[in-house]
């Protein structure tokens, strides 16, 4: 640090070689990487600590803050609405993720086979993923509408009773899940397809020579080899699934519709924090959500990581 004169580098020296130059001679490099760190400090780190402080206050955002101690957190633990929101979120996650993974696997197998129009299929299945959730939630709302929805029109046409897709607690969950499935099947299929293509054809060939039929080859060879890719998908959907917000907000409103059936954790957070301006309690809910998300991601990680034999035993 006392070396005031920066050493002049030999011209042949690569920029990547280690030197003992003083730190300020690296100023261009520090400046080059600084924008992310500055933004993250201001809009990431600081807010997180501030949220911890806020969660200990009683505050409507306008008047003076009042120290509340752990009051917000003890209330959170006994708040039935929050627990219901956790359960709703988990139920919607299961209802959407299980079919989504199965369908994505099927689509990936289809795309990996000798089928025509692969490019068109890839595009068709992937497009939902890049379309605005708000726009498509509006469309889904009318597709599943009880007065004029095409789904109920079809059900009536084949002699079945119309379903209260947006007025029945389970109908609401099914509709939200359907939309999540629709949005994510193609994305995951593309990822599974990349995983399938990474499996060498010789391995599959060897299984066939050993007398395995298609189903055995799939469950005993292909699926185990796909585990890393499956792990990625399950983890991503676990993290994303805990943060569902737009679908229920547009489909059934901020309160989550009939019996709050569509009220997810983040929807509840939004309602308390930004509609009722209960900033202190909102911050406590936010911390609650974070803990649930981390726990849930961890559980999923452990479950998928563990070598599972059930696929092979079936």
């Amino acid at each position, binding site marked *: 640090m006392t070396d005031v004169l920066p050493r002049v580098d030999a011209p042949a020296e690569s920029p990547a070689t280690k030197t003992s130059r003083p730190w300020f001679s690296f100023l261009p490099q520090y400046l080059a990487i600084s924008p*992310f760190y500055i933004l*993250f400090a201001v809009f990431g780190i600081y807010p997180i600590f501030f949220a911890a402080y806020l969660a200990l206050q009683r505050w409507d955002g306008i008047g003076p803050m009042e120290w509340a101690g752990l009051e917000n957190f003890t209330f959170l633990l006994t708040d039935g609405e929050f627990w219901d929101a956790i359960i709703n979120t988990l139920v919607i996650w299961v209802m959407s993720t299980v079919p989504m993974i199965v369908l994505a696997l099927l*689509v990936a197998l289809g795309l990996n086979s000798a089928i025509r129009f692969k490019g068109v299929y890839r595009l068709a299945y992937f*497009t939902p993923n890049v379309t605005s959730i708000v726009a498509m939630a509006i*469309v889904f709302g009318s597709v599943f509408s009880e007065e004029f929805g095409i789904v109920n029109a079809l059900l009536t046409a084949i002699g079945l009773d119309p379903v209260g897709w947006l007025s029945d607690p389970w109908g609401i969950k099914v509709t939200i899940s359907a939309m999540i499935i629709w949005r994510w099947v193609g994305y995951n299929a593309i990822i599974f*397809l990349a995983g399938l293509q990474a499996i060498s054809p010789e391995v599959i060939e060897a299984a066939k020579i050993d007398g395995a039929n298609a189903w055995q080859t799939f469950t005993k060879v292909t699926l185990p080899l796909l585990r890393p890719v499956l792990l990625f998908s399950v983890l991503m959907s676990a993290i994303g699934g805990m943060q569902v917000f737009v679908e229920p907000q547009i489909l059934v409103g901020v309160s989550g519709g009939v019996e709050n059936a569509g009220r997810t954790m983040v929807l509840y957070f939004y309602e308390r924090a930004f509609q009722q301006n209960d900033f202190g309690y909102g911050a406590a809910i936010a911390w609650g959500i974070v803990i649930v998300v981390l726990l849930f991601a961890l559980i999923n990680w452990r479950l998928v990581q563990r070598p599972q034999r059930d696929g092979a035993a079936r």
Partner: protein
Amino acid sequence: MSPSLRVKVFGGVLMALGAILTIFPFYWLVVMATNTTADIYKTPPKLTFGPELVANITTMLERIDFFGALLNTVIVAVVTTLLVLFFDSLAAFTFAKYQFPGRNVLFGILLATFVIPMQMAAIPQFLIMAKLGWVGDLKALIIPAAANAFGIFWMRQYLSGGALPDELLEAARMDGCGFLRTYWHVGLPALRPALAFLGIFTFIGVWNDYVWPLIILVDPRHTTLQVALSLLKGLYSSDYAVIMAGTLVAVVPLLVIFLLGARHFIKNVAAGAVKG
């Protein structure tokens, strides 16, 4: 038919059915946007395109400031994307090609930010914006998003994967290029394919962003497309043809951009996941 052929035909039919189901909401969106609301409410519903698109769009334009919202969205999406491309590529280039004290620790911190769920920061972020006087201002959308960990990580991986040989950097040094000039003349050109992906990815994400704009753009007359759409739906919930016209017009520009770069884009999504 042999069993294997039967499987093939069955699989082909399933794939086609699935694709039709997937595309159906888009088709239905166009059907509703081109018919009258009365047509939509008919039983059985009208299944084909109608002639009412222009009329529906005209009514929609009277109800919300669509072009204002479109302009805001374009501004936010373009400026954010350019800033992200610049800041992320500069940081990625530096991380990939330069040795400096604390490099590994700093990159580790960057990776760690991936796992921090940011929704817990929403209230304080709102309060910070209020302090800065940015509530209701597009700056509140652009500035916090101007650099992100994902892009830096993605492009650093790309550069470390051999996209930019050290000899090129050395040659630039010999020619007397300083750090910034080396980035501009050597780093950026090598990053071009990665920039294309990150650019589309960022643009789509910003265009579709809804929750933060909903929180921060408090003035319904000055908002982005997604928030304007939800307002249109909330305020005129019975007039479906008009809502659908607005939805259609809001979705089309992004779909066009996506379809132009789709091949490259989809390939990169898969590559990123399998490598990661």
